[in-house]
């Protein structure tokens, strides 16, 4: 890639005043570095991935409102986690975390375990029990 070809596209990076470093060649073919505001090609991949996360979070929120899933399932998506990551955060087996997606089981959870989940999500136990869905 030539220095003049380093893409300077509009992106979330540019909006956050963030430029990344790329390696490219100058007219003599020597390597130099050049800052880039982003590249459409990968920005589209990132946008797709972020939209996918938003969609999953919305679905989890709906399932929770319909009483089909516990707030844990919702907060997990909201925090961009999956069962593996969440299980490591709370120090439980994956199958136990999955069981806590069940609203009935969730309502029987005791304070210490709720606290672990709340800490993993950076919220209070009250917020975990009664998610403020307007926010």
């Amino acid at each position: 890639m030539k220095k003049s070809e380093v893409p300077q596209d509009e992106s979330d990076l540019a909006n956050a005043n963030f430029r990344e470093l790329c390696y490219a060649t100058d007219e003599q073919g020597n390597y130099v570095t050049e800052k880039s505001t982003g590249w459409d090609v990968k920005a589209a991949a990132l946008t797709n991935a972020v939209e996918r996360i938003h969609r999953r979070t919305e679905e989890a929120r709906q399932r929770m409102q319909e009483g089909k899933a516990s707030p844990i399932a919702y907060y997990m998506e909201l925090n961009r986690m999956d069962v593996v990551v969440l299980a490591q955060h709370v120090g439980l087996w994956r199958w136990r975390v999955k069981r806590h997606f069940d609203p009935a089981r969730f309502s029987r959870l005791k304070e210490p375990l709720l606290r672990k989940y709340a800490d993993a999500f950076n919220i209070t136990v009250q917020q975990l029990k009664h998610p403020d869905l307007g926010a």
Partner: protein
Amino acid sequence: MSDQFPHKQSAHCENGVISGLLRYQGSAVSEPMVFGIGSGLIFCHIPFLMVDQAPAFTYRSMPGHIFRSFTKRVGIKMEQRKFNDHKEAQRALDASLDQGRPVGLQVGVYNLPYFPPEYRFHFNAHNLIVYGKRGDRYLISDPVMEVVTELSEVELEKVRFAKGAFAPKGQMYFPVSVPEEVDWRKAIHKGVARTSRDMLAPIPIVGYRGIHYTANLIRKWPAKVGKKKADHYLGQIVRMQEEIGTGGGGFRYIFAAFLQEASKLAEHPEWMPMSHRMTAIGDQWRDFALAASRIYRDRNAPAGSYNEVADMLDELAELEKQFFQDLKKTV
């Protein structure tokens, strides 16, 4: 304690932290040099692992590999510590700063406040340098950032003790001794030999064989998982190849820059044209990313287009096979 740090932005964090810590001590080693000697280049499909619900691919070696290989090959002694106790971790950091010794830290990205929100994933193998403290705020030189930044005690503790895969456990490291005389030629040869070996490894998911393997996976995706997921998977490959930290072209450009610098240092004039060859290969990786993006940006992309990008990967695999067979003969 120092309030000044010779901050220099780099493409990749691991190279950048090593390069930065050495620069502070007065030894200038460029990012491509660290990457090449530390044999950072690879291609690998990581089986059984799903990242963001897509198969995992990597264009560089495992986190920590560059660091360990580079310091070993150059003869730098490092001290590395992990902590169970959060307070102990902070005390050790403060003590080191009090002695005027900046340190490298492994951190999680998800809670880094200065990263754009879109980029905050549960990725725990990021590295940064702490070079001082003002009040309760740490002075940070994060190699992927353009300028230095700061983190509060609470913020830093959170990212040092992020949980999940590759949990940093407060890991802190700094060079204890740097040799006065370095046999650069030998170190470079070791890095080149190892990279060539890895890229030609007789393992189906690694090196050029791994690229062929990935091409075959791509051909199967549309029928196996449907267009929507196949697009997500394809997008994931492009992100691993081009996102922050790669320097573009899945680290191939950094490697080409390394060959260019090394050709003089290690007296290998034949690496100059090889560097140009690697640049051309990097360009072809960019072409692949562009072609892949046409698929995931277009809901109605024809089904046959997956085969076309897979063919591009097969060609890249053969180019890299030839390249590293030739490179191997030079060391």
